[in-house]
């Protein structure tokens, strides 16, 4: 029994080491004095300072946050409403439309990127901020729809009927019953969108130009000339940011449940 337990714990530990060791290495090396990443020569904060002075990189980071912020909020709003519509109303083509949501989610990024680029060229939209934003909203949308729909389909439909029965109109039912009950799914849908948008390379590569640079593309172009410790520092900052975001969202969901 105890041996069995020891083994399962060891196994679980091994999985987490596998997941987090590379990240840990990256964080440690971001404090490395050496310009060549593999040799350890001593602690320094130099790369963080030079990161702070690198306006090009910081501009790209700010751009990324702007795009991720707007696209995730927009996708969450549209996606939540779409999920509610899929659940509440019976209309012709409902199932087909819902399957199409999956198709968008499953289709390879490269296909998405190329098709969006062709579409934008066709309608004559100049490549830049607008096109990037539209594309990010597009590929985030299905994830929100699926996340929210998964939760809403577990509801007792009588709860919605009860609200209507007690005098709530469509909007009031949504505002006071559906939205509060869906909140955990909405938050995680938003978080998913935000991270997806923040680290997208492939789609963004096609739909943005030199007028509007974002962080993943910037890093991508930097590492083609070799991984600089600055990139390590930047990645560490991003990882810390993600950590804060996830912790916050977990706390929020927990708070709602209590």
């Amino acid at each position: 029994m105890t041996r069995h337990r020891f083994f399962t714990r060891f196994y679980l530990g091994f999985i987490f080491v596998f997941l987090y060791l590379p990240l840990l290495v990256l964080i440690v090396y971001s404090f490395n004095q050496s310009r060549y990443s593999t040799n350890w020569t001593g602690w320094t904060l130099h790369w963080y300072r030079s990161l702070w002075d690198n306006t090009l990189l910081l501009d790209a980071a700010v751009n990324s946050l702007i795009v991720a912020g707007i696209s995730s909020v927009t996708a969450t709003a549209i996606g939540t409403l779409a999920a509610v519509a899929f659940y509440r109303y019976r209309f012709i083509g409902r199932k087909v439309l819902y399957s199409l949501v999956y198709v968008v989610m499953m289709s390879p990024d490269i296909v998405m990127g190329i098709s969006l680029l062709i579409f934008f060229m066709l309608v004559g939209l100049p490549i830049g901020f607008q096109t990037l934003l539209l594309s990010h909203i597009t590929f985030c949308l299905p994830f929100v729809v699926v996340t929210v729909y998964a939760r809403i389909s577990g509801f007792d439909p009588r709860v919605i009927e009860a609200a209507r029965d007690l005098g709530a109109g469509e909007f009031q039912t949504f505002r006071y019953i559906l939205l509060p009950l869906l909140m955990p799914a909405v938050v995680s849908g938003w978080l998913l969108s935000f991270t997806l948008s923040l680290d997208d390379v492939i789609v963004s590569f096609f739909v943005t130009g030199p007028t509007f640079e974002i962080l993943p593309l910037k890093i991508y172009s930097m590492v083609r000339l070799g991984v600089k410790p600055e990139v390590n520092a930047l990645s560490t900052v991003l990882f810390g940011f993600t950590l804060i975001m996830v912790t916050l969202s977990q706390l929020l969901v927990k708070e709602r449940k209590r």
Partner: protein
Amino acid sequence: MSRAVVQLQHITKTYDGLAAVDDLSLEVFAGEFLTLLGPSGCGKTTILRLIAGFEAPDRGDIRIDDVRVNALPPNRRDVNTVFQSYALFPHMNVFDNVAFGLKLKGLQRNAVAERVRDVLEMVQLGGMETRRVTQLSGGQQQRVAFARAVVNEPLVLLLDEPLSALDYRLRKEMQLELKRLHRQLGITFIFVTHDQEEAITMSDRIIVMNQGRVEQSGSPKQIYEEPANLFVARFVGEINTFDGSVEAAGADWLTVRIHGTDFRLVNKRGFRSGDPVKVLLRPEDLQIQKTEPADGKPSLAGAVEELIYKGSTVDVIVRLTDGKPVYVTEFFNENAAYIFYERGQKVWLRWIDRWEVVLPDA
């Protein structure tokens, strides 16, 4: 009779081509406790949903308080529902659940608080305002569901098998409590159940339904003692059904031959000589005699097959000489503190004149 608050006029509602409600008409009168009774799938819940506004009829009109409401959404009808699953709002506490309807009506905060407190007091949940509904027991949730509906003082309260999820004791308790609340509130109740005992205990009037139609409407006593047809007779309570044929008939009497014996019965339905009939007798209306009756009046001969002790009663299964089993219930009382029959003992069955029900053999 008092005013009709709900009228269904020739309502038909089909799902996938199957009629859940079939050209059904009924009226509900102000202040009554009406029960829709029937087996599952008979359309009773559909009727409730039609009145509440969750479904629209394919044909026919629904009138509430003399206004046609066919196209009115649920939130604009003066009826409230207690759901079978309670359907409480899980993210709200007891107070917010009950206050939901009042807040939507735009009542003042103080007025809302007062009304909610009164209603919670009435359903014996005083002091539970801040509890989360997910932490309540089934019985308490049931009370919150009830309070949430009646706090709006609807014209009609619709109850969709609200007691079916409770255990036996609690169900009995809630039956009496619902009756008390009905008297206290003076609101019209439309109660749906498949439990005939529950229907008889609680209702002023019962409508027995089958396959989307009304089989009989009447007081619990009428439904039990004077079933209009075989379906009602068999659905409500235990009953013995005997095949018979009318040998002779007059204006108010008839002679029916049952299992080879002629009985003289009351002719309430204008039967004529030669008509095939069913003679129905409740187990408690039959009497067992240990010796062949000497008064010359007819009886059915048989033998005791099984004796089932039920606490306050003893159920006896008697097999007639031609093989038909008959159920008889005997009560313990001062004349019969001790009831016992040997298995296989020969007995004779009879009943008090006029207690039988004679129906045409459909």
